[in-house]
C-alpha cells in the first residue's frame, strides 16, 4: 500500500511534496499580506479618526463573522466576474480565469489580516506610554519613534497572538483546494480519487499538516525567546 507514496512516476510522493511547498507558499504569502492588512487595520483603529476606524471595524467584524469558505468563494468567483468585465471594457475577447494562487493568497490574506488587526492593536496598546514619551523627549521624530521604539517592543506582545494567526492561516489554506490549486489537500483528493485509497492519502495529508504546524510552533517559540531577550524573568 505504501508504494503509492513512492517518490517518482510510480507514486504520489513527489506530487505531495510539491503540494506541501505550495501550501507553504500560499500560507507565507497570505500571512505577509495579512500583516499589511493587520498593520493598516490596527493603525486605523487606533488613529482616533472616525472614518478609518469605522472602516477597520467593518472589515474585522465582517471577515471574522462570515465563514472562510464563503469568503474564498466570493473572491474566487467574484474575481472571475470582475476580470471578465474588465477585459470586456478593454475590448479583449475570450474567457479569462483568475490565477488561483493569487486569488488564494488574497482571500486567505484578508482572513489572516482581520485576525492580525486585533492582535497588533492589542500589542500596540500594551507598549507602555512612557516609552514613547521618553523617545519624544529625546527628540526622536515620529517615524523614529515608530521604528525604533514602538515596533520592536510591540513585537514581543504580538508574537504569541501572531503565532496563533499563522496556524489558522496555514490550516485555512486547505480551503483553497476548492479552487483546484494543487496544494496538499487538492493533491491528496486527486490521489485518493485515482487510487481508491482515500484513507491513506488523507492521513498522509494530516501528517504533512501536523509536521508544518509542529515546525511552526517550534519556530514561533524561538522567535518569542528572541523578541523577549531584553526582559528579565522572575
Amino acid at each position, binding site marked *: 500500500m505504501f508504494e503509492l507514496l513512492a517518490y517518482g512516476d510510480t507514486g504520489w510522493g513527489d506530487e505531495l511534496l510539491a503540494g506541501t511547498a505550495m501550501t507553504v507558499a500560499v500560507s507565507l504569502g497570505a500571512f505577509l499580506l495579512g500583516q499589511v492588512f493587520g498593520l493598516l487595520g490596527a493603525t486605523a483603529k487606533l488613529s482616533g479618526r472616525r472614518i478609518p476606524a469605522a472602516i477597520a471595524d467593518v472589515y474585522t467584524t465582517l471577515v471574522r463573522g462570515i*465563514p472562510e469558505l464563503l469568503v474564498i*468563494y*466570493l473572491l474566487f468567483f467574484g474575481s472571475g466576474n470582475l476580470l471578465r468585465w474588465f477585459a470586456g471594457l478593454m475590448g479583449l475577447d475570450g474567457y479569462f480565469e483568475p490565477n488561483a494562487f493569487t486569488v488564494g493568497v488574497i482571500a486567505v490574506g484578508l482572513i489572516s489580516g482581520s485576525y492580525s488587526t486585533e492582535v497588533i492593536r492589542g500589542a500596540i496598546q500594551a507598549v507602555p506610554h512612557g516609552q514613547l514619551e521618553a523617545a519624544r523627549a529625546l527628540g526622536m521624530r515620529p517615524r523614529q519613534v515608530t521604528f525604533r521604539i514602538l515596533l520592536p517592543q510591540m513585537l514581543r506582545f504580538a508574537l504569541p497572538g501572531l503565532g496563533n494567526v499563522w496556524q489558522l492561516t496555514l490550516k485555512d489554506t486547505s*480551503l483553497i483546494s*476548492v479552487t483546484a490549486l494543487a496544494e496538499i489537500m487538492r493533491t491528496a483528493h486527486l490521489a485518493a480519487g485515482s487510487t481508491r485509497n482515500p*484513507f491513506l492519502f488523507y492521513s498522509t*495529508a494530516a501528517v504533512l*499538516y*501536523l509536521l508544518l*504546524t509542529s515546525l511552526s510552533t517550534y519556530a514561533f517559540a524561538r522567535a518569542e525567546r528572541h523578541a523577549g531577550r531584553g526582559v528579565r524573568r522572575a
Partner: protein
Amino acid sequence: MDLTLMWESLPRLLGGAPLTLQLVGLSLLLGLCIAVGLAVMRLSRNPLLSGPAAAYVFVFRGTPLLVQIFLIYYGLGQFPALRESFAWPFLREAYWCAVLALALNTAAYTSEIIRGGVQSVPFGQIEAARALGMGRMQIYRRIVAPIALRQALPAYGNEIILMVKASSLASTITLLEITGIARRLISQTFAVFEIFIIAGAIYLLMNFVVSRVISLVEWRLTPHLRRAT
C-alpha cells in the same frame, strides 16, 4: 446589483439555516461531552490518561478540519470491517460524518478551554473548601465548576462562533446547508456578490445572536463584578 435576485434568494438560503443550526447544535453537544472526558484525562496526574488526551488535542488542533471531514467521509468507507459494522448506516451518511468530524474537532479545542478554566481556580478557594470539610466531589460541584465555568465562558462563546463558521465545510461533502445552497445558487445565476451578501448576512446575524446570548449569560453569572447602583 440585482435587488430582485437578492430578495428571491433570501428564502432559499434561509432554507439552509435549519441544517446549519442542526449541525452546529448537535456537534457542540456531542463535542462538549467528549471535551469534558478529555479535560478530566488531561488534568489527571496519570501519564497513561493525560498522554492520550494531549495527543488527541495535538492531532485535532494541528490539522485542518477539511482533512478530518474528508478522512471520515471518504476514508472510513475503505475498510470492509467498518462497512459491515453497526456504525455503517450512520457513517454512510454525509450528515453524520459532518456531525462527527465537527464534534471531534470542537472537542479538542473545548477540552483546552475547560482545562484553562479549571486551572484558573485559585488554590486558596480549594484549600478553604477543604478546610470546611467538603469532599472531593462536593468541591468540584460547588467551588471548581462554577468558577471554571465563569472563566471559560468567553472562550467558549468564541468556540461556538467558530463552529457556526466551520459548519460551512459540510457543504464540501454534498450537504446543502447555507454555504452549500449559496454555492449552488452562484453556479446557477452567476450573481456572486448578491448571493454572498445574503448568505454572509445570515451568518453574521447568527454569530451576532450567539455573542449577545453569551454576554448575557456572562452578565448573569458575574453579579459580584457589577457596580452597585
